[in-house]
């Protein structure tokens, strides 16, 4: 049963299996274990980024193409829900409309970009997507009548997803069952389902073809694979899942803005998560996203303490300043690419 659910792609390492189980359990019981608002926010962000990073891994790790437009698709999802909810009111109908429109637009854009630039080399695709993504970012901030510009959009959602709503009168196990919990489990269920779907895709014959393209494109083509078709398809699937992640994140935050969706910083975060977690393994996305988002929220506190403890020493306090946490993750990222390109998951699997 479990084997089939994971599409035969088991963790293949006891330690890894234990870590994954712990993460799954922690996320499943997050409202119980960590009742604070901040920690529930962190848990939801972890969930969304697991999905986002896993979809990016389909491109980078499995197909071997680098895209910088992944946040664009993430943003399309967010803005789809945001604009629909802000313009047509907080009904399920408008959310569905917004989501469908976002998914359609993403598929179309991914297809167009793929056809235009996946014929040529990886580097070309990376550059084109960077240009298109930055264009989209400017577009979103310019069309402020629709997108709220730099301020973004705040909107209401259907009653059942709002934190003010009580679903059950009496607290359950000491936790108030509010709309917040309902939206958390909505995100959780959707992420779990889509993650298993991605696992299914990469372990299907389709996924094997993607791997063969990554390993040796020339040879894949010589065997008779239409590489452009497969790459474009992978690009579209990844874009659709990223859009779904954007929709979920918008549902959770009830806010859509350039900083939470389109910003290039998020693209960099995704890259770091994929590489540190492990390229070419879906489980790497889980580890990478969990580690990174937790670090983002809690490492800074640690660095602040270290920085204050070292006051007086030259240079060190500013290197350890809490705002410089990206510096250290950047260094870790470069080291990962050189010394363990399969990331944490690869290391764990090699140990057995």
């Amino acid at each position, binding site marked *: 049963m479990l084997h089939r659910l994971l599409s035969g792609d088991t963790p293949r390492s006891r330690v890894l299996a234990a870590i994954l189980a712990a993460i799954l359990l922690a996320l499943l019981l997050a409202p119980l274990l960590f009742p604070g608002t901040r920690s529930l926010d962190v848990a939801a962000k972890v969930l969304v980024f697991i999905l986002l990073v896993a979809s990016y891994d389909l491109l*980078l790790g499995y197909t*071997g193409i*680098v895209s910088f437009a992944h946040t664009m698709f993430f943003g399309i999802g967010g803005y789809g829900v945001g604009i629909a909810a802000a313009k047509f009111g907080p009904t399920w109908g408008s959310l569905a409309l917004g989501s469908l429109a976002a998914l359609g637009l993403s598929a179309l854009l991914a297809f167009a970009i793929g056809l*235009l630039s996946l014929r040529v*080399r*990886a*580097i*070309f695709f*990376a*550059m*084109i997507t*960077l*240009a*298109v993504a*930055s*264009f989209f970012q*400017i*577009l979103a901030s*310019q069309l402020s009548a629709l997108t709220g510009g730099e301020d973004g959009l705040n909107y209401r959602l259907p009653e059942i997803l709002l934190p003010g709503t009580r679903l059950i009168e009496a607290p359950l196990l000491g936790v108030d069952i509010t709309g917040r919990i309902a939206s958390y489990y909505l995100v959780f269920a959707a992420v779990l389902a889509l993650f298993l779907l991605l696992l299914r895709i990469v372990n299907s014959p389709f996924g094997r073809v993607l791997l063969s393209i990554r390993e040796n494109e020339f040879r894949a083509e010589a065997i008779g694979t239409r590489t452009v078709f497969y790459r474009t398809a992978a690009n579209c699937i990844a874009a659709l899942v990223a859009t779904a992640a954007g929709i979920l994140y918008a549902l959770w935050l009830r806010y859509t803005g350039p900083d939470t969706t389109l910003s*290039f910083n998020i693209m*960099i975060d995704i*890259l770091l998560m994929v*590489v540190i977690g492990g390229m070419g393994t879906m489980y790497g996305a889980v580890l990478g996203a969990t580690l990174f988002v937790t670090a983002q929220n809690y490492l800074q506190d640690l660095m602040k303490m270290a920085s204050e403890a070292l006051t007086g020493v030259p*240079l060190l306090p*500013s*290197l350890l*300043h809490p*705002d*410089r946490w*990206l*510096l250290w*993750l*950047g*260094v870790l*990222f*470069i080291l990962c*690419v*050189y010394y363990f*390109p399969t990331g944490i998951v690869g290391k764990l699997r090699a140990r057995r």
Partner: protein
Amino acid sequence: MSPGRRIDWIPLALVGALMLAALPLVGSAPTWVTLTVAGLAMGMMIFIMASGLTLVFGLMDVMNFAHGAFISVGAYAAASVLVAMRGAMQEASVTANLSAMLPAVLAAIALAGALGLFFERVVIRPVYGDHLKQILVTMGGLIVCEQLIHVVWGPDIIPLPRPATFTGSVTFGDAAIERYRLLAVLVGLAVFAGMWLLLARTRLGLLIRAGVENAEMVESLGYRIRRLFVGVFVAGSALAGLGGVMWAMYQESVYAQMGMQMMVVIFIVIIIGGLGSVGGCFVGALLVGLLANYIGYVAPKLALGSNILLMVLVLLWRPNGLYPVGKS
């Protein structure tokens, strides 16, 4: 452009055609002159920043996403010097201004070049021939550089006033032209002329061009293509530093993300020009600069899409850029 061979004039004619086509759209001749000079100045600065990147790609098939870091670092180095020499900058004499600007530019070139050398040695050398890792590693390098800039120079935007003699504008008839833009055009032309002379008229340039064409053959004839490549890489980084200073003075401010922001335009320019082609990069930069200024005046709403539009049109016409470099 391949010096020494027959020159493909069509893309060059395109620049002229764009200028002429813009004249009736803009309406008034003085405004057109102002816009054209502004566009040329912007194009020249972009060219200075982009030329090294495209040459490095042509020669060694390396795409350096951290090129933007050299731009920022150059600008910051110059800003440090200029802030220290504030007095000389504010005097209304050209010699005093130049005596502050020259050391600033030299500092930018030296620091950006040194960083380039370090980058080539430490970051890029292990990942030759692997595009995927190149993109990832140089992207990581960009992140680390940006953060280090914050550590060294602080996180705030540094204002960078232009030197006194280069502020304001000169008027030709009715057309007002900013002095600084004229300076930018002159420096850009000088850099392009210098590069063209180096590539077309010297033995070194011959080797570089041969290396772009077929690196293995040059190597088998006994030349150390590696050493050549390091030289080109450092020179390209230094040019990025120079471009960074000029762009920072144009914007009158310095901030850490400026390099990354410029990278988008630079990528568009070298894609338009044809990856690896210096001449194409020059024409592409001029097209981008001119179009941005014309459209910004005629139809401001379209301005943000003008670069992408131009890129799509050029790629539809010539899928490998204006001057395709014959290398797969």
